[in-house]
């Protein structure tokens, strides 16, 4: 379905040729007929609404710049290289923070899940950190680490550690104890147990945590870049606010959105490969 005329968005009905009686009750389990690009329908509709509202003057450019202006600004920023520069800075911070956070979360989860001393020492501590909204640490983090790169990376790492830890730890403790028994009967070494049983058994939980962490990494980064930074997408947006440039702000939003979407897709691809054995379970 193509939505190109202004009159179209007023009809949010499902597409389909009229005349066909629509069945209201579909038997459960019967495959649904797929609407092409079904998932893009809502966002496209929103875009059209925005465009129409801007074109008719309903939406003040001071409140939100029209889509065409945003696109033009996007082009300008990309041509000047300014966008890429800030993007790289943000990407680096997110990647570093995520890398440290995920590694730490995984190691802590393994230590807590596989040893009783580890469980006693680590689990309570992480549960305590978890109950703190991570962004509440920003003032203290700034005092401790200043306003350099470290503070942003550390905040992202702290924020991403928690979901990876929680989900990996839950998967490990939920691992069937009969597999541990099996490990004894085949004389698996501790390293073998870790590699063949503990890690693959915890992988589904780890990936759930990883996907949450990727989302959180951008969230923490946005906030820390807007509070105290001199570069990065968040900084670009804060600067734009000072000058009332809603077009630049929207460009920043779009970039963050694309980054989030892209990173989530990457993790899902990775997950599909790593958990290939699960596809046969259905």
């Amino acid at each position: 379905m193509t939505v190109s005329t202004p009159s179209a968005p007023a009809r949010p009905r499902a597409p389909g040729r009229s005349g066909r009686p629509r069945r209201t009750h579909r038997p459960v389990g019967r495959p649904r007929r797929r609407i092409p690009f079904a998932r893009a329908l809502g966002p496209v509709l929103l875009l059209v609404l925005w465009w129409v509202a801007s074109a008719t003057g309903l939406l003040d450019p001071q409140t939100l710049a029209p889509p065409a202006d945003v696109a033009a600004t996007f082009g300008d920023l990309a041509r000047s290289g300014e966008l890429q520069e800030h993007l790289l800075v943000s990407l680096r911070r997110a990647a570093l923070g995520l890398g440290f956070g995920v590694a730490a979360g995984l190691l802590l989860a393994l230590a807590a899940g596989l040893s009783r001393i580890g469980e006693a020492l680590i689990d309570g501590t992480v549960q305590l950190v978890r109950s703190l909204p991570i962004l509440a640490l920003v003032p203290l983090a700034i005092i401790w680490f200043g306003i350099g790169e470290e503070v942003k990376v550390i905040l992202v790492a702290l924020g991403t550690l928690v979901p990876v830890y929680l989900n990996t730890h839950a998967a490990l403790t939920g691992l069937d104890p009969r597999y541990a028994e099996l490990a004894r009967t085949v004389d698996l070494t501790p390293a073998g147990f870790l590699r063949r049983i503990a890690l693959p058994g915890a992988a589904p939980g780890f990936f759930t945590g990883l996907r949450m962490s990727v989302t959180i990494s951008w969230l923490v980064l946005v906030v820390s870049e807007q509070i105290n930074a001199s570069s990065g997408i968040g900084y670009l947006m804060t600067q734009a606010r000072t000058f009332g440039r809603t077009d630049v702000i929207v460009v920043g939003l779009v970039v963050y959105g694309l980054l989030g979407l892209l990173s989530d897709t990457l993790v899902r691809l990775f997950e599909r490969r790593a958990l290939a054995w699960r596809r046969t379970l259905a």
Partner: protein
Amino acid sequence: MAPHPGLTADTFTGADPVGATDGPAVRLRGLTRSFGGRTVLDGVDLDLAPGEFTALLGHSGSGKSTLLRALGRLDGYEDGRRDGRRGGAGRGDTPGATGSGTADVPERVSVVFQDARLLPWERVLENVVLGLTGPDAGETGRTVLAEVGLAGRERDWPAVLSGGEAQRAALARALVRQPELLLLDEPFGALDALTRLRMHALLRRLCARYRPCVLLVTHDIDEALALADRVLVLTDGRISHDLRPSAGTAGGTAGGGHGKGRGELRGELLAALGVEE
């Protein structure tokens, strides 16, 4: 089933064939296990000869599984001492458990559980050779998989195997390490009757070939009589009956000579288990 050319009897039994040693393969003396004050095994004395196929019958709760776990060193006791360090997570050990007595078991012990217990994230071949090291582990695994009738299924995920196939893979995993003692914990309990009969035939063939000392824990008298040279009944933590069906009984006909008929044995075992016929 023709043995694989690369695997002669020597490669399987090693330099010291099990049958050559004179002593018993398994020697239990005064084996006692209690859980929270309840005595499950009460001073069990038992010798199992190398290559002997023994079935262990008993009510649920009679201590069958506890005995098997002790033989498989799965209960956290090593030489009568508790040792919680073995086995990674080490959560199988029950708190409040005490034990005494000695259990001399061979070095190579394999266990087949009632559930196939294949790792869902490893392919069939990787499951079979789990814990094996050495360059020819994969080749040995393939050979044993072919012997249990799973040739060509090496790259399958365990989830696509049927119950019987999964149990065959579990059997292959047990045999691939050339066990001197093979422990079977109701391995066919979850299979349908026809599959179970086919598994009996397979097990008989494999045992004739590998000659391990076998202890089969079961609650099925007919299964015990069909497979075993010797049938034990465990009652209240002690071995109450120790019977030897004669050679002819496995075929279903009444055994001659010194052995008892199958029907007679069956009646005796039913009575031992407290079932009126």
